[in-house]
């Protein structure tokens, strides 16, 4: 079972390719979301950074999960900028470190690496669930995956559950008052707007489902 759904470095590369594609498709929407409660650049930044990450992958071709994580992280950090650059950078750096110097990850290893990645975002940004940030998509997603695996589900089941949870988490940000990031300056006026970072995080999780357990 685990073997059947083993995640390879090639799958991880496909994940980033797919993420880059959907970010490009949704770039304008992400920037729109970042207008009322931010500075109208989330889509632009993410598109630029993901494109650079894909180019970097094509240039280097990582050998193992750690190398993959580091390559993506460095690119996202230097090409996305803003708040989400270091946060998504931390995500992939931690993913690679947790995944280790290996070419494949089994189901548990994949979800464990995702957990480490999400925890790194929380550590770097010092945000908590309910603060109206990307963590409101990421934390429910990884918790749902863990629960699914725990209940004996396949990676595919886990990923599906994670995607659904991320999407719900993203929608749940709309009524929240932002307490972190730029949107927090608006106080109560941040209510009623979906968080752009939670939206890109949902796309990240969905891309993982499409590529790591398809």
């Amino acid at each position, binding site marked *: 079972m685990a073997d059947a759904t083993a995640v390879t470095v090639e799958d991880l590369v496909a994940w980033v390719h797919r993420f880059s594609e959907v970010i490009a498709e949704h770039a304008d929407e992400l920037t729109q979301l970042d207008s009322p409660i931010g500075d109208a650049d989330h889509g632009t930044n993410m598109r630029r950074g993901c494109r650079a990450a894909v180019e970097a992958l094509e240039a280097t071709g990582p050998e193992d999960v750690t190398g993959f994580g580091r390559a993506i992280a460095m690119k996202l950090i230097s090409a996305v900028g803003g*708040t989400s*650059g270091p946060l998504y950078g931390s995500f992939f750096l931690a993913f690679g470190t947790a995944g280790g110097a290996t070419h494949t990850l089994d189901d548990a290893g994949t979800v464990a690496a995702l957990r480490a990645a999400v925890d790194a975002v929380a550590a770097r940004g010092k945000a908590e669930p309910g603060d109206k940030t990307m963590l409101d998509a990421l934390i429910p997603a990884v918790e749902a995956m863990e629960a699914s695996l725990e209940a004996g589900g396949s990676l595919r089941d886990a990923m599906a559950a994670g995607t659904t949870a991320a999407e719900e988490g993203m929608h749940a940000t709309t009524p929240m008052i932002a307490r972190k990031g730029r949107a927090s*300056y608006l106080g109560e006026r941040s209510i009623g707007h979906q968080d752009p970072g939670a939206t890109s995080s949902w796309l990240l999780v969905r891309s993982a489902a499409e590529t790591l357990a398809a």
Partner: protein
Amino acid sequence: MKKLINGTDDVVAEALQGMEQAHPELKINHELKVIVRGDAPVQGKVGVISGGGSGHEPMHGGFVGRGMLDAACPGEVFTSPTPDQMLEATKAVDGGAGVLHIVKNYTGDVLNFEMAAELAQADGIDVASVVIDDDVAVQDSSFTAGRRGVGATVLAEKICGAAAEAGKDLATVTELCERVNAQGRSMGMALTSCTVPAAGKPTFELGDDEMEIGIGIHGEPGRERRPVTTAAEVAKQLVDPILADLPYERGEKALVFVNSMGGTPLIELYILYNEVVKLLAEHGIEIARNLVGPYITSLEMQGASVTLLKLDDEMTGYWDAAVETPALRWGA
């Protein structure tokens, strides 16, 4: 969107090229986007750098030069620069006495500067950081991102740049910077929005009779939308929250900085400054120094901000010290 630009993706890169042509006394690293003073690194001097999104010109690049910043890292428009830029800037200005990072309090800026500082320290450079958070429009709380860094940044860069130029050590310059931040308060307002080139349309829409009070410098909407009013009333709406947050004794000295958000012309800024002067006189505050002009802007936004810095003699001395940058020059 009408702007004097070519492609929206090339705004920052081309503006840097133009800046290099206009200011051959600066060294510009176009690949990493770093603006460095011509004679850097100055051996034995503390390096002072800053950086942040573009679109606030002349801040920060226009403050690079003798007596102020040693380097600046411009990000994309309203987007934090990245750690590789900051690392490069830090290395380029390190004269062996350490480097101060002056960081405006935005999550992106803070996270990126944090990473850069870790990388620089790993390279053996002594780095200190001060996060500027002077914007009284934002409620301060340890549960939130905290106040934004706005006008006090310009004052901190001038004052700390002068202290570094005078040979003060990293601890002293850092402590001074913290003091400027502790004594500085700002509040801003907008009559119009601005348009981020890549977004192509105004970040927010304001009616013909509306203004935003408590804006930041990234075209983000403010604390509140209010009806447009006179310069006298606007001055009050900016000064009152500042004084409520950091009260002054009668006779205390202030540096008053009245800043254009970009699109408000000097003739209006002087009218606003005149009203601020009257208000401060009522409070018995002595205006020991002033700065009036567009120094920390939001693209073409119409609007203004007021910054008050409670001065001590040391700050005043460093404020008066010679400065020679594209945007601020005196006493050279």
